[in-house]
């Protein structure tokens, strides 16, 4: 069922000889290729997505800077769900099992990927981690990416939706500084809003404005992982997405984040780029 056991996805890159050079024994040729540089990653990501769809699992990729509250959000979410949805988590960090330990302490399976010095997760890492999880018995797989507002945005993992977190202490202009990352979001969470009374510099309205300026037109939820109305709105979003994924899976359909890294969007179009 995996690339390791022989299944393959996607045609080979389009290529054709373009021009011939000298007529000596050595010849110079220019080969027109036009293929996604990250095409191999995209291929594995598509394969991951097939695994998730096969089991009707919703895969969410959580991205933010380090310390924005991804793990705290997951802990609070798992506790609030109280078994209502079956959850597992893939944790990405450069080092330590700390985050996976925190998730396991909430009573759900977690796999820690330690990337060494790599600043992002890629599809192959997620593929290997997913094989250590009971996908058949899950409703939601959270993939907590490496805390980083740059690199993770360029790699498709096979997720259905991207969720970005922007925490109040970081400042409301973060979307303008890191447009590629925040533009990739399907859902934007403004976290640690319990700190708003102490950090007057942060304006949720300005944050929303900065998100609009970079072309984000999805839903924005203000919340704190300590609970409250915003947190309930997040849980309701999760319920809707899980239900939508079940329906799609039953129809044999899938979903992708609204914004795709370039190579992945070429695959999504169902056709290779034309020469």
């Amino acid at each position, binding site marked *: 069922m995996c690339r390791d056991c022989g299944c393959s996805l996607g045609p080979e*890159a389009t*290529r054709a*000889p*373009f021009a011939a050079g000298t*007529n*000596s*024994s*050595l*010849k*110079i*040729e*220019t*080969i*027109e*290729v*036009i*293929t*996604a*540089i*990250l*095409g*191999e*990653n995209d291929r594995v990501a598509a394969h991951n997505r097939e695994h998730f769809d096969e089991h009707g699992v919703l895969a969410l990729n959580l991205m933010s800077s380090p310390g924005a509250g991804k793990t705290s959000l997951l802990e609070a979410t798992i506790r609030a769900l109280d078994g209502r949805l079956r959850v597992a988590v893939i944790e990405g960090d450069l080092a330590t099992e700390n985050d996976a330990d925190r998730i396991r302490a909430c009573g759900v399976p977690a796999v820690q990927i330690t990337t060494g010095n*790599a*600043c*992002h997760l*890629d599809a192959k890492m997620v593929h290997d981690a997913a094989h250590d999880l009971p996908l058949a018995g899950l409703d939601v797989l959270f993939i907590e990416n490496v805390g980083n507002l*740059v*690199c993770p*945005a*360029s*790699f498709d993992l096979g997720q259905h939706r991207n969720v970005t977190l922007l925490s109040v202490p970081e400042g409301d202009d973060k*979307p*303008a*500084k890191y*447009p*590629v*990352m925040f*533009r990739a979001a399907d859902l934007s969470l403004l976290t640690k809003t319990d700190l708003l009374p102490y950090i007057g510099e942060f304006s949720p309205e300005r944050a929303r404005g900065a998100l*609009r*300026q*970079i*072309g984000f*037109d999805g839903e924005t939820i203000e919340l704190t992982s300590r609970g409250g109305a915003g947190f309930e709105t997040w849980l309701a979003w999760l319920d809707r997405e899980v239900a939508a994924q079940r329906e799609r899976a039953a129809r044999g359909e899938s979903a992708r984040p609204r914004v795709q*890294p*370039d*190579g992945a*969007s070429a695959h999504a179009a169902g056709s290779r*780029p034309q020469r």
Partner: protein
Amino acid sequence: MHELSVCQALIEQVTRVARDNDARRVISIVITVGPLSGVEPQLLEHAYPLAAAGTVAQDASLVIETVPVRVRCCSCAAETEAQANRLVCGACSDWQVDVIGGEEMLLTRVEIETETASIH
């Protein structure tokens, strides 16, 4: 600094093209990169020699063609250039736009040296 990962993926693609076309060596590689791809051309240039070392593309030059962010306005239909952190219509300033360029991260051309069949 994910540019090293991107360069390693690039070299894998180029190596495949070289092998499929019986190349003795790769002379140049042309890629197209847009600001919304999330990779920085200058960092790609720095990372490239590390990824290329010891491969068929070891001595190949890397040519990076950069393209601007372009948007099509949903209100006035104008197609204009935009900044990555200000995706608004250049004509009417409306923020409801479709991105039509600037997300590229593509391998476009590979120049290779091959040996012709009729030697001597």
